[in-house]
């Protein structure tokens, strides 16, 4: 049997040692009426056959190697250097478990210590853990941590309406049994207001009952808020004794002032863009960075430096007294598995790019996105909403329903169009969120603009 080395002779010898005649006897504790049910599964396949089946399934999908991708909205098609997957696939990393036995897990532990260090460098924070499941659950864990830091006495959380809609949804799911009041994201967006007016309105929701305010920068609509604007918001949040949580695109931090420089208490985000394939939504990693003073209130695995019995530098999982396997029902989070391998990919990516490479990637995204926005702004019927600086995503008002435009882009041009914002913001019905990264060539961008123009010019009944 595949993957099972025991031969019939082995089994016979082992059964004799155990003292039973058949393998079936080992299951006598299972109630007889339920024992050995039939499983209605397709028949087994050889490796050759299974690959043939999987290749057929894979080929039914239009993948990004064959499309020009202008879709982002929280999952991004960035370049992944070959070295990342090469290292990742080393069995010693790939097939290891959580490094609970540090003497024989130094590879994972040191790599994760370096990951923590680079996340701190990127975000401008003092401590980072070794990841949550994704950006959305990292955001929910930030809420839980804020409740802990404010000693469980505060019951209100302010969510920016331009925090990723799925992150907001996950925060609601996680906290449904906690008796919290989640505010800030129910009203229509005031797209015409200035950043100052908008942030003031948000800050006015923060009071003495508020545990934290969560803001995404650049926000879900791609808009960038300046460090000065963020610093002012942080000041108002802190004045109420609440925590300022910032969700951020890690690639943007190759270029922009990090949240640690403008008053963030917790910085979270989706780390997928750092060297992880887009992979239909997962596995990704949620990065999570904080201040040293709050680290004991956090959840998730953390690696610390120490020495061995001979005084040599080494690394161990530390502060585990916070975690569920020690604290059980008193733990603030139940997290156990993290996204260790994805964090390793992120570490390799950050080290490979280095300080100059990551900045280059961010600049390419910025310039290409602006070039695309400039071209589209000139098209009849389209309007780019660009009252604010933006990074790699921007909002376009379209002359036709977004779903119809996207269908035409996909079927007629092999272009994956932008995110239909009307799904989450009724007031932005007919608006598309376009994303441009370093992967998009000038030709692709120009073809997108031409395609959009052509589709807008089609007679109504054709689109």
């Amino acid at each position, binding site marked *: 049997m595949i993957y*099972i*080395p*025991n031969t019939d002779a082995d089994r016979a010898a082992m059964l004799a040692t*155990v003292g039973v005649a058949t393998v079936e*006897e*080992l299951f006598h504790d*299972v109630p007889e009426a*339920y024992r*050995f049910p039939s499983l209605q*599964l397709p028949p087994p396949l050889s490796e050759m056959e*299974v690959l043939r089946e999987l290749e057929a*399934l*894979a080929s*039914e*999908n*239009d993948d990004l190697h064959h499309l020009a991708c202008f*879709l982002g909205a*929280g999952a991004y098609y960035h370049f992944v250097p070959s*070295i990342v997957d090469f290292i990742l696939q*080393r*069995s010693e*990393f790939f*097939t290891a478990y959580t490094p609970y036995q540090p*003497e*024989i*897990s*130094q590879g994972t532990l040191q*790599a*994760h*210590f370096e990951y923590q260090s*680079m996340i701190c460098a990127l975000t401008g924070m003092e401590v980072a853990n070794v990841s949550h*499941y*994704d950006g*959305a*659950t990292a955001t929910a864990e930030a809420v839980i941590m804020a409740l802990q830091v404010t000693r469980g006495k505060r019951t209100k959380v302010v969510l920016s309406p331009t925090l990723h809609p799925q992150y907001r949804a*996950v925060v609601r799911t*996680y906290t449904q*049994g906690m008796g919290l009041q989640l505010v800030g994201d129910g009203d229509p967006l005031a797209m015409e207001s200035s950043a100052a007016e908008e942030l003031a309105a948000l800050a006015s929701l923060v009071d003495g009952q508020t545990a934290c305010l969560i803001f995404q920068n650049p926000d879900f609509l791609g808009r960038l808020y*300046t460090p000065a604007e963020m610093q002012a918001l942080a000041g108002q949040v802190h004045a109420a004794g609440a925590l300022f949580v910032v969700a951020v695109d890690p690639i943007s931090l190759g270029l*922009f002032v990090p949240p640690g420089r403008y008053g963030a208490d917790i910085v979270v985000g989706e780390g997928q863009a750092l060297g992880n394939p887009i*992979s*239909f939504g997962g*596995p990704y990693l949620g990065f999570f960075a904080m201040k040293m003073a709050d680290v004991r209130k956090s959840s998730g695995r953390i690696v610390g430096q120490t020495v*061995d019995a001979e005084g*040599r530098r080494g690394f*161990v999982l530390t*502060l585990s007294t916070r975690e569920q396997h020690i604290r*059980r029902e008193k733990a603030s989070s139940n997290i*156990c*598995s993290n996204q260790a391998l*994805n964090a*390793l990919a992120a*570490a390799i990516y950050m*080290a490979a*790019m280095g*300080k100059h490479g*990551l900045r280059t990637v961010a600049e390419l995204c910025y310039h290409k996105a*602006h070039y695309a926005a*400039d071209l589209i702004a000139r098209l009849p019927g389209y309007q780019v909403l660009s009252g604010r*600086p933006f990074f790699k995503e921007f909002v376009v008002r379209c002359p036709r329903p977004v779903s119809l435009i996207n269908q035409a882009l996909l079927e007629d041009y092999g272009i994956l169009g932008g995110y239909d914002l009307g799904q989450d913001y009724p007031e932005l019905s007919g608006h598309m969120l376009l994303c441009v990264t370093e992967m998009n060539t000038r030709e692709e961008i120009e073809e997108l603009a031409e395609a959009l123009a052509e589709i807008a010019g089609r007679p109504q009944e054709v689109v």
Partner: protein
Amino acid sequence: MGEPLIYEISRPGRQAVALPTCDVPQTPLPEGCIRDELPLPEVSEVDLVRHYVHLSHMNHAVDTGFYPLGSCTMKYNPKVNEAAARLPGFAALHPLQPPSSTQGAMALMYELQCMLAEIGGFAGVTLQPAAGAHGELTGVLIMRKYLHDQGETHRHVILVPDSAHGTNPATTSMSGLKVVEVPSDRRGNVDLAALKSLLDIHGPNLVGMMLTNPNTLGLFDEHITEVIRMVHDAGGLMYGDGANFNAILGIVKPGELGFDVLHYNLHKTFSTPHGGGGPGSGAVGVVEKLVDYLPGPIVVRQEAEGADIYQWHMPARSIGRVKAFHGNFGVLVRAYTYIRMLGAEGLRAVSENAVLNANYLQARLRGVYPIPHGDRTCMHEFVAQGIIKGAAEIRTLDIAKRLMDFGFHPPTVYFPLIVPEALMIEPTETESKETLDAFADALIQIADEARTNPELLKTAPHRAPLRRLDEVRAAKELILCYGGCAA
């Protein structure tokens, strides 16, 4: 000399990746927003490769040696899984693409939902949870919401056995519910008398019970149907922690036994690699009455013009999303590949051989180390104690560290909490008799060394990359970042 940190091999001006020059007109950068420093390392590609290869040499892994870590199911990870997950038609898909352009991926998810439902005996499955604990949170929130919808909003108690993983009580608290611990009986089962008196007190407030079966002692509860009946009679729901599913593939379906909810650990039972602690996948199966409460979107199949169309569907009474997008898809592809290769017969063989291997090891170690429930047939794992007659100063930790010198990863230690000096041993089905014998021989030799040369154990490991590490110092000094977190 250990491997330097990546920052220590950094030299200004080095870079491992060449990037294209900008092919579009440049736009001025926004004022006041640009960072003046980015303290990432600067290394060349060859230095980077050597760095990580050197680090990898300091890891024990399934592919380098036996890894009998109880409750973690460190089985071999088939390489075909990796080929499958890396097909561009899977790895290069955007999660928000129109469903018309991802029908193959959605078909795979649909089929996996169905196969897991069949294996567990459930009516519906969500693939969204990212790990076992995430599946637990999902399951308990489903139970809570279902009961609330029945008007039972006062119910707030979850029973958790004293042998449970820490995630069970932590999940309960995180869901806003109260944990009541249930003791185990002399034979390692749920103590029925204690359960009855706890239900007399808490029955009216009961949300349900979380039970791992086989439990963390590696034992199949001898009164499982009775336990489930009692919980149901009290109006509660039965949650199954599927951490130990590797013992019961094709042996019993938890849904048929009466479990209402169960999470599967695809990274344990279904062979996807652990990657140093993750990613996992904690798919959740539920009985018919709870299908509408699953987090979504899940994949549904509809027929249109004679063809199958796969669509996203948010269940009507869903607890909501537990994660962005659709779950750890790459992990799902690997699990799907594994199930398709084994089929029903292969899956049953997995559990039969996992259980045989564990019983064989238990038989070989009986009399050498105390095995509190060694009189029973174990399932896929068993719990011994690191207590050696004539070597009173030797602890489980010493035995664990000494095992490293023999090239073995130690078993899970000091868990479950109800067994002092626990050594929890799970060999899995992918290990040969020769490996099991070598491991048993090592443990027998170590017991002997404990009496004749205890210092050898106390100072172990001797052949690992490092000697014992000072964990107390790590927690006290808190060096968590290169350069000491001077952000």
